[in-house]
Every structure is written in C-alpha cells, then in structure tokens.
C-alpha cells in the first residue's frame, strides 16, 4: 500500500516537459478556465492535467493567479468560462461543499483553524457521513456515539502523526501559526480526500517544523492521496514535488520535473523579468547622463 504511488510517479518520466502536456493517468483535467476581474485576466488556463498519486507543485510569481485557480477548481469562486473534471466528474459550477464531498479538499493560505473549537473538535468536523450531524438524530446521542468514537480514534491517530496529540483538548486558537497549518492539513485528511490541495502550506511555519511537514506530505502521497500545492519556498518545491506547473499572468507557461523547470528560460524570465541577464548598460548610461533625475 505505501508504495502504490511509485508506478504513477515513474509514469511521469516519459511525459514531455511542456506546458499543458497530457499525463498518463490524470485525476484532474482542466480546459479553457478563464477568470477575469474587470479588465484584469487573473486566470486563463488552456489545458492542464494533474497526475494521480503524485505531489504536484503549482508555482509562479506573485499575482500569477495560483490561488484564484485553486478557488475556481474547488468551487469557492466561479470562472467566466471553462470546465474541468475530477475523477471523470464535471465539477464546473459545483458548490464548494460538494467538491469536498467528491474528494477534492483544500486548505487556505490564511489558515482557517476554528479557534473556539478544540483541536479534537476541529478534527472531528472533517469526518464525512456523520449520523450525529442530522438534526433529529443529533439529540439522541445513542444513535451517533459509536461512530463518534471511531471518528475520534482516527482523529487521534492523525494528530499523533502530526505531533498534535498532546494538544487535542486545547482550543485551536491557542496554537501557534505553524501548528494551525498542521491542524488544517490533518483536518482536511479527515475528509479522506482523493486529492488534497494545499495553499502555501509552508507560509509562517517555523523552519524547524519544515522537515516534518515535508514528511507529512510524503506520507499523504504514500497513502494514495494526490497532492497539489501552491508554494513560494523553492527549496520545498525542489525537495518533494514530482512535477511542477508554473503559472505566470494567469497562464501555465511551463511544466516538468523540478530541476528541469527551474532552469527553464521562460520560468526564470517570469520570476526575474525578461532582461535580468542583460548588462544594465542602458539604464546605467541614463543614470550618468541625467544624474539630477535620480
């Protein structure tokens, strides 16, 4: 079981390193997804596929449209046009809670740990098909007590693997920023997603926690869950991603394994500007010619 993802990752070896390329076993396929805010085109993705069972990173400079693309895919925002399928199911126009029910679960850039609930209650909230969440059953504890105990056990095991077990009875609001990130990820796993989408899992996390967070993400993949994450930390991207998708100005501009993508001309241009490797002669001359303008 833990090594189920290996062949799926291996299969990426033969995939050409180009934007919008087809994958051997895609879990998510998006076509012509477009979102503009007034005149600003935030997302304009022609075609992109996410390989099942892999860790895929979505990178790009600020304002590239990564988070907006996340919001569109998970139903939190609606595109002006476009469609996408997840596990073969059309998801365009589907409400966010349905998207989560179908197995695509996201976390948020600004962590949404529920501060006034305990860590354990946060975890339990993630479980699906709870009998006690039905209005009439809820006032008869004997109808849901058994299921609740099973949920709590599973939650405790997850909390243990995220080093949060000793915090289970604390209010989530008392956790540190990094611990909240971990809690949010663990809570998303309580849904038993087929694909988990992490929006900047590293932001605000103590560097000492980085390595264990990476291990957690690898464990998630080993458990058979596909991971898609947005991240700015290039060390993390290089470290754990099987595949990298680069966005710039709303479009997918490059794809490939981490090392290949990071030496890609178009990617470097997108991050640093088109003329970053040219000598600064023009501007240098301008400075000497008109020093009073500086």
């Amino acid at each position, binding site marked *: 079981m833990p090594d189920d993802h290996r062949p799926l990752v291996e299969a990426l070896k033969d995939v050409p390193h180009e934007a919008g390329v087809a994958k051997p076993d895609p879990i998510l396929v998006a076509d012509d997804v477009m979102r503009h805010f007034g005149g600003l085109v935030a997302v304009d993705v022609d075609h992109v596929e996410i390989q099942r069972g892999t860790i895929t990173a979505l990178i790009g400079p600020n304002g590239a449209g990564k988070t907006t693309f996340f919001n569109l895919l998970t139903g939190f925002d609606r595109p002006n046009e476009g469609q996408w399928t997840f596990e073969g199911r059309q998801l365009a126009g589907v409400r966010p809670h349905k998207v989560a029910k179908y197995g695509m679960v996201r976390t948020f850039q600004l962590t949404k740990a529920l501060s006034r609930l305990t860590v354990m209650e946060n975890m339990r909230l993630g479980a699906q098909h709870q009998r006690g969440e039905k209005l009439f059953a809820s006032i008869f*504890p004997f109808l849901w007590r058994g299921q609740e105990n099973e949920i709590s056990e599973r939650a405790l095991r997850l909390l243990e693997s995220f080093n949060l077990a000793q915090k289970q009875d604390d209010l989530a609001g008392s956790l540190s920023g990094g611990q909240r990130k971990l809690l949010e990820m663990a809570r998303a796993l309580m849904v038993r997603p087929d694909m988990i989408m992490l929006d900047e899992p590293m932001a605000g996390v103590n560097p000492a926690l980085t390595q264990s967070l990476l291990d957690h993400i690898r464990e998630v993949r080993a458990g058979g869950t596909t991971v898609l994450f947005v991240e700015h930390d290039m060390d993390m991207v290089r470290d754990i991603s099987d595949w990298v998708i680069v966005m710039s100005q709303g479009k997918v501009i490059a794809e490939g394994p981490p090392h290949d993508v990071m030496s890609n001309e178009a990617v470097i241009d997108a991050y640093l500007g088109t003329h970053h490797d040219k000598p600064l002669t023009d501007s240098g001359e301008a400075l000497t010619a008109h020093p009073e303008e500086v």
Partner: protein
Amino acid sequence: MDWSNVFSQALTQGIGIQAVIFCLAAIGLNVQFGYTGLLNFGQSGFLAVAAYGLGVSIAYAGWSLWVGLLVGIAAAVLLALLLGIPTLRLRADYLAIVTIAAAEILRLTFRSVTFDPIFGGSDGINRFADDFYRYNPYSGPVKIGPADFSQNDMWIVTIGWILVVILSIIVFLLMRSPWGRVIKAIREDEDAVRSLGKSVYSYKLQALIIGGVMGCFGGFIAAIALQSIQPDYYSTDLTFFAYAVLILGGAARVLGPIVGSVVFWFLLVLIDGALANAVSSGAIDFIRNDQVGQIRYWILGISLMLLMIYRPQGILGDKKELSLDAR
C-alpha cells in the same frame, strides 16, 4: 414606603409571565445568534405569527387549542423558510435587514383595517384561551416565597417554565452533538466548513427554523397569558429586549437566556418600584412620578453598557473564548 412590597413585586416579575416570554424568545435567538451567528432581528415576527396562528385558529376558524398551537408552529416554520431561503446564501447583514423589515410588515398587516375581520385590527384578538384555563390544576392564588401569583398566572407560568426547561435541554443536546459542532464552526468561519464538505446553507436554514420555532412558544405564552393578542406588543422592542436578555445572560450558553431574563425583569421592576417609592415618599424630588417609567430604562441601559464594558461575555459567558481571535 414599602420596600418589602417592591422586592416581592420584582421577584414575582423576575419569575413571572414576562420573564418566561422573553426567556423563550431569547432561547430561540441563542440558537440563531449565539451559536450559529445569524443576525435575526425579527424574532418578534416569529412570536407574532405563532400568537396570531393560535388566535385566528381558535377565534376565527373555531378550531381547538391544540390545532391552534400546531398552526402557530407551522406559521413559524414557514416564516423561517420564507426569510431564510432567499437571504442565507448572502452575506450575514442581509438576513438582519430582511428579518427586521419582515417583522414590521407582519405587525402592520396584523393591525391593518383590511384584515380586521380576521386579525382584529389594532384591538387584536381577545378572550380566546378559556380552553387553556379549563385544565388549570391550581384552585387559588399561589405564594412562592415572597412572590405572589393569581390562580391563572400560576398555571401559565408553570407551563412556561416547563417549556423553558424542555427547550433548554434540547438546546443542550443539540449543541453537544456533531450537529452543534457544525453550527458552532459556521459561526466562526463558513468557508472552512464548506471546505470540509458540509452545506453551510442547509445548516443555517435549520438553525433559523429551530430558533424560530423555539421563540414562537414565547408568542403562545404571551397570547394565552394575557388572553389577548395585541399587534403592537410584537414591535421591534420585543426583539431588542430579547437580545438584551440573551447578551446579559451570556450568548452561546444554555442557561444564558434563563439567567438573563430573570435578572432583566427582576432589575427592571426593582428599579421601577424603588424609584416610584422614592419619588412618592419625597426622597427624590428632581423627577416626577410619570417620568419613572422612562428613567428605569435609562438606568437599565447604563447598567447594560457597563456590563458590556467590564464583562462583555455576559453573566455566564466564557471570557477566554471571547478573547480568542476568531477570524
């Protein structure tokens, strides 16, 4: 002057009919506002449709008390659906706007001349609840300590507090359950709840209905206790007093509405009686007797403000919970 009389008056009102009515209204608000975070500013509308549903069924349609109660509950459910379906997908403030307007529309409809034959216009519906008092087990006035109740008052107050206990137990069970967990999570962050596969809209609608139905029992008690349904009793004041009761006692606490309504009515009547006494005995000479009714609300208002400043969580609330950043 008679201080013991002032005190026993205050105590009687503290556990009396008004306290029961506002307690029931606040229990409903507690589910909606306290636990779910829904701003229902039209609780008076829920009490009104329940009272009129009961009154019209008995006085106009000639049905029995029990059918009247069912009609009242059905009317409250219908009102919740009517208000909730269009607004609960929108931002929280829209519900507030729509509910406060709907409550006023209802009141003006009930008192309108057009519907006078059914709702009785501004006179309302009177003397329709004799059936209820036929079941009265009390054979005379009852004294509980210094509190004093007439035979009929004692009967309705007894039923009222039994209802309060039953509904409070239901709220307790609901909020301890996974259903309550979803509800409390919605109060904090709707998007987080959506991302975990729960339909926020459906839960908010359920909370609005439950809170409306619980509050509507306050309408029944008000109608039956006074043997009269006056349209202007169900004005926005009723909603705001119910909020005051809830916040005073402590929102999102099962016992909050009970403590809140008892303290609220005890203090209101105590201040009223004490002032009236002091004025008539000449101890206070800068206010007149007819001003006492207004000034008691000043004093109560100032006390509520002080409470909010020094104890924002209410009497029973949890300061620790309030101080957490609940973004």
